[in-house]
């Protein structure tokens, strides 16, 4: 298989390079491998024919120009950082699967063994404390979400590449029996294809359910806080790697709904709270401005908009001692009136409510902790040790 090149002229700056790299995973099914350099994108394809290459090259060009043309990368702003004392970094060589800590069950799916599942729960206890600090009310949310609700919040335009659809067999005895007798194709896929009637998805975030729950309501006070935890689903193609990026993962959210100033202040307090928690947990990280992984058509304007109005910060845990690779383990978001308007949620003064959410990826936190402290719980910071091992 040959490596072919798509030349990048002018060269890509680092921000564009990173953005192109992520979106290349969704570029063309014939791409077997790729590497994004500043001056070119190196691609290997299957089957390696001129006809396929012509098609792939034009798609790669579209991805590059959709990201680069007219894009003025926003400046990163650092909100907080913890780099000392450094953790022992004893988990860098731990192979989670070989050590029986996880069992992969397919692309972007993993079963966590007791050690990691316990760690996830202990992280979550800290976030429940945080939820208590903000007097957040709990909410139970389903994994399924209606398609029309996703359309109302404009999700299909911003993140079409990550969607996971849910469907069932039609209420038809012939179809059900036919499926039942041969449920899988030879390559292990479901043999039935829905013709129509798919109106549900697996939810990519838990807070969307809250906004729906509050639809057409006037809030009782200037700020209401809620918390919820649930499975979330974001298909990220070839970017799905280990526990760092799962298709199906657990998210804890604390959500603020209310007056503009109250929501902004609550987000600030959440960041302060996480800075304190970071000391207790002993992890090294940065909190800085970020943008969501918008798809090509929407990338440029939405990324710039998020940055300009300080809408998103990410909590980035270090994954190695060079402080090079990091992993977003949480985010602190303000949505302005996006959801308040979509669901007609009003403040007591009659204004459209602002919303903000703090979201934490529990498997990612567990993964980062293992990288920094290893897989031996006695070496973990006290705040994350099982009770029996605490001093």
């Amino acid at each position, binding site marked *: 298989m040959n490596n072919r090149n798509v030349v990048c002229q002018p060269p890509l700056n680092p921000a564009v390079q990173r953005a192109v790299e992520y979106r290349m995973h969704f570029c063309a099914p014939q791409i077997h491998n790729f590497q994004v350099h500043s001056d070119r994108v190196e691609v290997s394809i299957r089957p390696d024919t001129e006809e396929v290459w012509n098609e792939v090259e034009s798609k790669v060009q579209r991805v590059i120009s959709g990201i680069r043309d*007219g894009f*003025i990368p*926003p*400046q990163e702003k650092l909100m907080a950082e913890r780099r000392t004392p450094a953790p022992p970094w004893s988990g860098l060589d731990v192979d989670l699967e070989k050590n029986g800590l996880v069992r992969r069950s397919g692309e972007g799916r993993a079963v966590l063994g007791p050690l990691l599942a316990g760690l996830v729960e202990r992280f979550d206890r800290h976030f429940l404390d945080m939820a208590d600090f903000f007097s957040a009310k709990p909410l139970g949310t389903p994994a399924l979400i209606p398609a029309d609700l996703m359309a109302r919040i*404009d999700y299909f335009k911003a993140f079409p590449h990550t969607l996971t659809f849910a469907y069932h067999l039609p209420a038809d005895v012939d179809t059900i029996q036919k499926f039942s007798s041969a449920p899988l194709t030879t390559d292990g896929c479901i043999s039935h294809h829905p013709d129509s009637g798919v109106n549900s998805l697996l939810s990519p975030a838990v807070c969307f359910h809250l906004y729906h729950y509050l639809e057409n309501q006037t809030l009782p006070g200037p700020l209401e806080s809620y918390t919820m935890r649930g499975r979330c689903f974001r298909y990220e193609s070839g970017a799905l790697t280990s526990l760092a990026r799962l298709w199906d993962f657990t998210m804890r959210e604390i959500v603020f709904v209310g007056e503009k100033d109250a929501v902004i202040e609550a987000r600030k307090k959440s960041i302060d709270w996480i800075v304190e928690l970071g000391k207790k947990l002993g992890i090294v990280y940065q909190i800085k401005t970020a943008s969501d992984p918008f798809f090509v058509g929407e990338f*440029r*304007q*939405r990324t*710039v*908009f998020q*940055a*300009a*109005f300080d809408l998103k910060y990410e909590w980035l845990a270090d994954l190695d001692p060079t402080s090079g690779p990091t992993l977003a383990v949480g985010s602190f978001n303000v*949505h*302005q*009136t*996006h959801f308040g*308007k979509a669901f007609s949620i009003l403040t007591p003064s009659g204004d*459209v409510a602002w919303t903000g959410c703090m979201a934490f990826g529990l498997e990612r936190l567990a993964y980062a902790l293992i990288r920094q402290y290893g897989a031996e719980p006695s070496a973990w910071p006290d705040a994350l040790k099982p009770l029996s091992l605490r001093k």
Partner: protein
Amino acid sequence: MAGRAEAPFSQEIGMDAAGKAKDIMARALKIDPQLVHDKLELGGIPQWDSFGHIALMMALESEYGIPVSEENVLRHTKFSVIVESISEKQL
């Protein structure tokens, strides 16, 4: 003491740029041009929300070459500033 009534901003800067600003804002925000007034700011009407602002910035870029940069997104949050920028582009 009653002072001289201030001339509307759109008259000071010239109707041409103000008219163009009204026109582009009405189209980008999908509103009646009459809703656009001299003191209008981001958030002043429901249609000029985050999405409306993105649409407006895209329109300003494609029609007047004002790039969608962080600085411009933050700067063009008032009708008066949009008029100024269009006016500068016309010089």
